[in-house]
């Protein structure tokens, strides 16, 4: 079945099996391997992307369901070679270790922080309920999201 969508600002069209998951479409058809697959039960959040502007788990969306949508993946976050403030904050605050959960974390965090420049620790910790990290103990992720939220609002 033919599907077309705008991915990271670029129009794409592919012929896929209806059962193909969006995450496989992005990784295997488009070569966008930033969204990782860490579980098979919609738990870990490593595959989080933005679909029509909201954070979703791309492992639990069929590519055919995303037909006609606009998608942003971690690869599309930096603009003109400049890191997104949330990417920068994860780097600055050591918000990652092995890096596997990081794309999903950052994609979830950018939506959590949008319009919320002064997130509390508690809001961040609850806001990341859909993202698992086995390395960092979350502490530096919380710091990163806090800093990233401020930077997104233009402060620092």
């Amino acid at each position, binding site marked *: 079945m033919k599907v077309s969508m705008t991915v990271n600002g670029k129009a794409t069209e592919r012929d896929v099996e209806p059962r193909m998951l969006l995450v496989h479409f992005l990784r295997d058809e488009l070569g966008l391997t930033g969204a990782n697959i860490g579980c098979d039960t919609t738990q870990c959040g490593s595959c989080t992307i933005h679909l029509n502007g909201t954070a979703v788990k791309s492992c639990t969306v069929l590519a055919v369901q995303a037909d006609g949508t606009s998608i942003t993946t971690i690869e599309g976050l930096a603009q003109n070679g400049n890191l997104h403030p949330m990417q920068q904050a994860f780097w600055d605050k050591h918000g990652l270790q092995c890096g*596997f959960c990081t794309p999903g974390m950052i994609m979830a965090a950018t939506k959590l922080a949008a319009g919320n420049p002064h997130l509390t620790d508690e809001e961040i910790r609850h806001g990341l309920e859909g993202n*698992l990290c086995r390395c960092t103990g979350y502490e530096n992720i919380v710091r990163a999201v806090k800093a990233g939220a401020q930077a997104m609002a233009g402060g620092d």
Partner: protein
Amino acid sequence: MGNYKGKSMKRVEDPRFIQGKGRYVANLSIPGMVHVAIKRSPYAHATINSVDTAAAAALPGVVAVYTGSDFSNVGGLPCGFTPPGIKTPAHPVVAVSKVRHVGDPVAVVVAENAYIAHDAVDLIEVDYTPLPAIVDAKGAMDTGAPLVHDDVPDNCSFHWPLGDKDATAQAIASADHVVEMELINQRLIPNAMEPRACVAQWDSFMENMTVWTTSQNPHTIRLLLGAFTLQIPEHKLRVISPDVGGGFGSKIFHYAEEVIVPWVARAVNRPAKWVSTRSEASITDAHGRDHVTHAKLGLKKDGTITGLYVTTWANMGAYLSTFAPLIPTALYITLLSGLYKIPVIFGETYGTMTNTVPVDAYRGAGRPEASYVLERLLDIAAQDLKMDPVELRRKNLIPPNEFPYQTPVALQYDSGNYPALFDKIEQLADYKGMRKEQEKARKDGRLVGVGFSSCIEASGPAPSAVAVGLGAGIGLFESGVIRVHPTGKVTVLTGSHAHGQGHETTFAQIVADELGVPMEDVEIIHGDTERTPYGVGTYGSRSAAIGGSALVKSAEKIRHKLTLLAAHLLEADPADIVYDQNSGKVHVKGAPDRAKAFGELSFALTTADKLPPGMEAGLEETSFYDPANFTFPNSAHVAQVEIDRDTGEVTIQKYAAVDDVGKVINPLIVEGQIVGGIVQGVGQALWEHGVYDENGQLLTATMLDYAMPRADRFPTIQVDRNETPSPHNPLGVKGAGEMGTIAGTTTIVSAVMDALAPLGIRHLEMPLTAEKIHNAIKAATSNGGGN
């Protein structure tokens, strides 16, 4: 000295990760690649009568289907730690006649894509005769228990005793007070966020095999593939572990898929790929812990410890994984002395076979189990003797002036200042303030607990002679090459492997400081057997201490060569030459202007026209560093929890940690390791548990049922350090990777049990779930216990 060591440098590896450019094995795609999926046993124990692959093979898009007998030309998966007397049952890569745990491979499908491969797996019909299963570590040795392997009588693979049994029994018998208890250290599933994956490419012209695998130690995998399993000569084998998404031990071992995938690539002469799903990972990746322990601690009335006697049954699972027998023996019994002067210790472990996934090293590996036994005993002893648990511990600490300290269980501790460590944590956590707060809360009827634990770790497994003497199949040194290019840029090759630890940053800091060059001029290469010299890899918190030290040694050789060269060029005596490690300038003592820059000297070794007599051109040095001993990081952690009386749910209110990891190269990275470790350790205390039912079915095979720690369950964790440099390596460092995990578990258990102590509840087994706590509270209060 130097510009970088001791500083929180931002990680150089991060730009690729934060932009989704991590080079994980699952991201690899090679034109013409086939996909492998594996049919696995749904039974814990069964005889295979027949495997019908016809329907699978007929499915369009299926390239080939193989069963166990097709793999007759590969060797079984070996065990790399074999103490004397051990029985090592055969471990076929694909089961032929019998399956021994849920997840045992039975058949292999090769298809054009992963979807078809999984469709075909569902079409394979296997006829089994189910057999009775055994899952319990201790029960496996009971009379009449189902036998997992015919050649392992009583399901006992090994018995490993250490220490003076009679003297210890005597000390316990004559003690004023004895704490005796059964403890279960439950089975855990490592769950690194990246599931394992393997890609292989066969070059049929050159007969070379390249294997990309999610491994913490690609050289070890190449050695085992070459010498034991695949039996392709090592020089024709290249193993690459690119970016690896966490390991925590589970990616040390040689797994069946690492044999199956290259075997398939050669058989079908196309690149082949296998990526584990999470549920598959749960039934194939080696699990951790799973001990049943009987322990006795003898004390004098005043709290002085007189002896410790420990017997443990360690579940090995269905087969002996690569290093499995090492964990509950030489990394467990030897750690039972903790931070304390204990006159006599006897420990023994029975390694038992069961119908479960093999158990091997998982973050901490043996050391958390030892610490858990000791710290639980001490908490209960303090309760019994009506002492503050910290005071009881303080009374028994090894004094700072007794290092190096020889324990009764083989190890010799390098350095430490335990009283200072205790002072620091009491201050950081405001331990006394917490106790006051607790007193007040208790008066209000609230269940608030304060937990304390102090832990030791033996990190940086080494030296080789000792390891091999104990039964290790390989030495445990590490390699490090420094290659200086003509323009003075530096490539560093290390046998260590990073899968989250940040070696590309830490090692660059070390080398930049050792040579006096900017960090951005140094690149660290790891994880490719064709680019780096043979090395051992990363586990047991060994990389900085051993891999880092190898680089220090190579840098010393570089400096020595450049000093001789500069002396020659500056017409001075080498003894008068100073190598300035801040600037990389090599100059005449007292005359900083009579100098050669690092780049000038490296280029001089390229033109090679003005070298001193006998000096070879080029600038590249290699070292293989084998330390004299482990290093012994130590820690003291404090936590405060509150229990919801109605539900039994635990809330962690405060957590503070002081760790001694020796000298610190990058505080940012070390803190990240400590905090990450704590949260993982707390996971064991409160939620995580790999649960088997009595038929050997794993009930926690997905993240819907295996409870991983989440962000919202934790407060901010405070960390500080108590630095005592290790004399066992030139950097003075100790391992930092596992301390948090060891202490995190014991500290939270201590806090929860402290909260429940007024109710007369002595001990509950981990994980301390809401239900378990609720039931204990209910039982205690309905018995009229407590206050």
